[in-house]
């Protein structure tokens, strides 16, 4: 690890932290620009009750003070009390939901990357042949389908019509369909990325040299080519995470998985501001973290990349 890399690391980390701070600030001020009080939407309460509730949740103080308090408590891992699920703290609910979302999201992400790299490499090696064309048509179709369309069609076909898989997330094997519906889009995207990257690398001089030396085809592909094709896929890890986390909002709703995405949409319905803020900040931090790790990994894997 040289000095240049270290300075890049520090700079990138600083950027990531700044972005997290910005997200917190945007979230806080956007939510506080709403004129409605979180308590006014419910059944008529007396002014005294609302005032007492606002005092309890700290909503009676000036906005900048509230912001500083909010920042301070977030740093202690305290996202406040949920107003939609009374008696629960936001962080408890987030962790409870994240258990499901992480399981689905992680599996879907790994599935998408592994299958995408395999399919993309096959397509590149079979360039112009039937298999390549089939893969290209299928991936083009898949990246044109929103996650909710994919999920609902899977639900309709495999659960309602054929009855092969359960439609609810809490049943046995109920997470299979959500995982598939989340992974199809990133898988198709990775396949396209891997295909063009593989084609690019296979045209390089060192591959021709290796072939000319008489290296076995399998060794050329796995040892010389494949490693060098993976860098674009690594940079996709961050955006993929963003897709999976936001996609899980609709997928978890469709398959009734009690994950973070469903929690988020439910907290919108219940106008639970603390919850909306908490989940937004949590999800954003996850995405920023993945982007950060992806960028760093990218430079570690391929030292040729200019750090400036």
């Amino acid at each position, binding site marked *: 690890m040289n000095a240049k890399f270290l300075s890049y690391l520090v700079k990138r980390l600083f950027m990531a932290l700044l972005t997290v701070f910005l997200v917190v600030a*945007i979230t806080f001020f956007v939510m506080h620009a709403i004129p409605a009080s979180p308590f006014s939407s419910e059944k008529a309460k007396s002014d005294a009750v609302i005032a007492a509730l606002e005092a309890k949740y700290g909503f009676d103080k000036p906005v900048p003070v509230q912001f500083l308090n909010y920042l301070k408590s977030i740093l202690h891992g305290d996202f406040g009390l949920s107003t939609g699920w009374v008696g629960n703290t936001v962080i408890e609910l987030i962790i409870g939901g994240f258990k499901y979302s992480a399981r689905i999201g992680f599996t879907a992400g790994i599935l998408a990357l592994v299958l995408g790299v395999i399919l993309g490499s096959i397509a590149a090696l079979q360039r112009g042949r039937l298999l390549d064309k089939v893969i290209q048509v299928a991936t083009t179709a898949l990246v044109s389908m929103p996650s909710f369309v994919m999920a609902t069609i899977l639900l309709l076909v495999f659960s309602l019509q054929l009855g092969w898989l359960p439609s609810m997330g809490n049943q046995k094997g109920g997470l299979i369909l959500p995982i598939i519906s989340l992974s199809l889009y990133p898988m198709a995207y990775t396949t396209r990325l891997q295909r063009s990257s593989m084609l690019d690398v296979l045209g390089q001089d060192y591959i021709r040299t290796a072939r000319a030396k008489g290296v076995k085809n399998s060794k050329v592909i796995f040892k010389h080519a494949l490693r060098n094709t993976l860098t674009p896929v690594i940079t996709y890890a961050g955006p993929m995470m963003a897709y999976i986390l936001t996609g899980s909002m609709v997928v978890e709703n469709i398959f009734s998985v009690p994950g973070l995405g469903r929690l988020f949409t439910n907290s919108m319905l219940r106008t639970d501001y603390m919850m909306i803020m908490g989940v937004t900040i949590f999800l954003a931090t996850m995405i920023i973290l993945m982007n950060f790790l992806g960028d760093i990994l990218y430079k570690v894997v391929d030292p040729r990349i200019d750090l400036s």
Partner: protein
Amino acid sequence: MPDTKKTFKNPISLQIDPALFEKAGDEEKAQQVTMRESVSFTKDAMRRLRKNHIAMVSLYVIIAIALIAFIVPNYYPYNYTKQDVTAQNLAPFQYSAKEQARIAQGAEVFPHIMGTDALGRDYAIRVIYGTRISLLVGIFSALIVIVIGIVYGSVSGYFGGKVDLVMMRIVDIIYSLPDVLIVILLSVAIKDWVATSGSDLVARLGAGMVSIFIVFGLLYWVSMARQVRGQILSIKEQEYVLASKAIGASPARIIRKHMIPNCVSVIIIIAAMQIPSAIFTESFLSFLGLGVSVPMPSLGSLASDARTGLRSYPYQLLFPALAIFLIVLAFNLLGNGLRDAFDPKLRS
């Protein structure tokens, strides 16, 4: 050659012997005439695009969809709000009992091409209106991105130095903000704001639409700005720019004649890529109930509503799903075609 020096009559060109030259004949002159008119970059790209069958078919599909979405509603016998309790959840081309009675009396009843929804509204016109919303969102978002991206990117690239550094840092930060989350957050806030303060325009457009446009204006132009800036920076250093400066071209002329034409390809490619992503975001928000306000339909909200009767009326899901798939697919394929046509270097 012994006495060449004597044969030279022209003192300026000591090396050339005029006797070795002869006048060009008409045939030779004809070879110098330009055989075909000069082809501009855009014309050349359009020719390449026209040769790309997939892209052209996509273009025709988009035009056809746009014509249907913007013309058909004016002449359609049903509208998207009219409910009919006697005609709930009809299958495509099925008539309600009341309509059958009218047909029996000899009246002509326009068929429900896609059936009706749970409130007895004609489904085809709702899908058509949803398509219209999707197209509008796509096109307006692309326009916002084009305008802001070009202005920001060219200012940053043209001035360079410290201005560029600061402007690009801002872009870097915006680039790393999770856009979809911010769209959702804004939609929630705007929706509540509409509910309490009751702004008519915002209410008519819908919270999702307004927040999509805001977020596109705030966040999505960054990739356009980056590309335009990069392009401007590299063009600035080109020798032909130096040459035109040397012969006294004004900065305005350089920007008009050299910079903008060289940015066109980047602008077209990125704008074309932006459209499907905007359509995706709008349908996603509408699916979550944050998009257009009822009774205005959107392809996302239609798909979401179809979930309740999914087992009995699967076609209520399939029609909007197919519409959005077709639109996004056509824009994606056209985008690929435009990329290949306008930037042959990027061709994979």
